[in-house]
């Protein structure tokens, strides 16, 4: 009486998507907050575009990667906290008592992350265009932007799952949020790396993988098709996805080991 992995994954993905969509506050804030930060950042730092050597025509174009990366982070924390809540509430135990394959749980949760990431990517793109963001790589570039965003969401979602499965505590997952938030800012998100004056900050931004995710998305907006930036962007995104999902699977195995 064992159901196929596909049925299990789709049932669980359906559940996590339903759950998210039925909390309008979560969906709205996952879209509104990054948008708000984007608006404040883009207009607040507008003057930075007049710095000599600034790579984009306007700071608005330059800053467009910001809401996408931030949205991926919001989605990941929400999904991670949801999983941790399932563990805390005993829902996870209930699922563990069924013949469900543990990997179905992880895949179902990540499918929910991908769905939210897709929604966020499309909405932000539409709003960005409305605000006058000029995407140099054109329509094909927009598709790639959404693709990369979803991949980033998946990678962050994997990290969220790792945290949830390791700690089993909503509070622990949520208190990791500031850490993530900071690591976004400690990257080339606000200025290109060669315009960062403080050496230590430039060094941190260069070592921070998020810089490459940002620069990959950004290159499609401000440059067009930049093979190096895209290669680095997708490379790091796939790397994070692979590592975090491997980590999450390992923690999942320990949690269900019996």
């Amino acid at each position, binding site marked *: *009486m064992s159901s196929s992995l596909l049925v299990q994954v789709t049932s669980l993905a359906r559940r996590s998507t339903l*759950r998210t969509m*039925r909390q309008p506050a979560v969906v709205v804030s996952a879209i509104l907050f990054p948008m708000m930060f984007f608006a404040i950042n883009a207009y607040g730092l507008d003057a930075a575009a007049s710095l000599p050597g600034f790579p984009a025509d306007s700071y608005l174009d330059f800053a467009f990667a910001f809401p996408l990366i931030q949205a991926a982070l919001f989605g990941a924390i929400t999904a991670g906290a949801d999983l941790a809540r399932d563990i805390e509430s*005993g829902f996870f*135990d*209930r699922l563990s*008592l*069924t*013949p469900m394959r543990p990997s179905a749980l992880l895949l179902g949760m990540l499918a929910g992350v991908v769905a939210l990431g897709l929604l966020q990517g499309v909405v932000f793109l539409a709003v960005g265009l409305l605000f006058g963001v000029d995407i140099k790589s054109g329509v094909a570039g927009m598709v790639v932007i959404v693709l990369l965003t979803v991949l980033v969401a998946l990678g962050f979602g994997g990290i969220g799952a790792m945290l949830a499965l390791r700690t089993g505590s909503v509070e622990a997952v949520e208190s990791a949020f500031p850490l993530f938030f900071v690591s976004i800012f400690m990257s080339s998100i606000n200025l290109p790396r060669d315009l960062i004056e403080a050496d230590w900050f430039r060094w941190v931004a260069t070592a921070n993988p998020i810089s490459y995710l940002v620069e990959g998305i950004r290159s499609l907006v401000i440059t067009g098709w930049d093979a190096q930036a895209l290669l680095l962007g997708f490379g790091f995104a796939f790397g994070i996805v692979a590592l975090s999902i491997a980590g999450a699977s390992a923690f999942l195995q320990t949690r269900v080991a019996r």
Partner: protein
Amino acid sequence: MAEKRAGIEVENLVREFRKGPRAVDGIDISVEPGEIYGFLGPNGAGKSTTVLVLTTLLPPTSGTARVAGYDVVKDGPKVRAAIGAALQEAALDPFLTGREHLNLQAALHGLGRKQRKRRGEELLERVGLEEAADRRVRGYSGGMKRRLDLALALVHEPRILFLDEPTTGLDPQSRSALWSEVSRLARDEGVTVFLTTQYLEEADVLADRVGIIDRGKIVAEGTPEKLKAEIGRPSVEATPAEGSGREAVARVLSRFGEEIAAQPGAVAVRLMGGAGDLADVVRALDSEDVRVTNLRLDEPSLDDVFLEKTGRSLEGEGAQEVKEAQV
């Protein structure tokens, strides 16, 4: 190989946690197929830990446990296929409806689309949730959540059912509704039920056999009737009237037996001579002109059994917890 009809066999089961004493300290349990076994004890006695081990959610430190004929450590998947469990927290997703819960559970158990629908309808009707089926669980009452929890545990028609404190926090009406459904399952469908509770009445009414656990050890086991008969003697409780001091009442009653815990202001003793002593008690009070407002004969209860075995009262502890929770 597992027999088609096997219950629960536990031998010298131990579960330790890194901190603190052994939660389960070498218990033996044998539950016959079709039996309702009540596992009675105060909070923290080891009831839930035992259930987690028996449902394969927690590995034992040592000892063996076989459920439905399968070893909980070696044959986890087979055990899980044979059992249903409603664990302590009614673990439900507040944003899904009752029907969606059943549908998800059924899908994970491998039921086909049509089967899922039919089984869902059937169970919703059985636990009386047809009308609430399409409402989100967030709006359910405690009793509705427990009933849905029970329905979820029954989706795959398990032969053995684990219920961990199924009625804690429920109002009397919901409680008795759940009791009748559990009895029906055992009586009509031959489901074996392993039930933990801290309520004496629940164990008394529902269980064919009761195991009393305290601090990780089983201190008494048997049918409720047998356990109470072991204690044997009933008790009498008297509430002094105004003007008659408590001491006067206690002095008279102490002639008939050892004093035991009583309601505030009242005096109770276990009657050495059995229920027949009651008439003598009345005469003695009368002849000494000690007036009482209330005089009650109590049959021995499971609480008396617990008191006898552990030196503490289960009810008293429960009452204390309630008080603390309100502060």
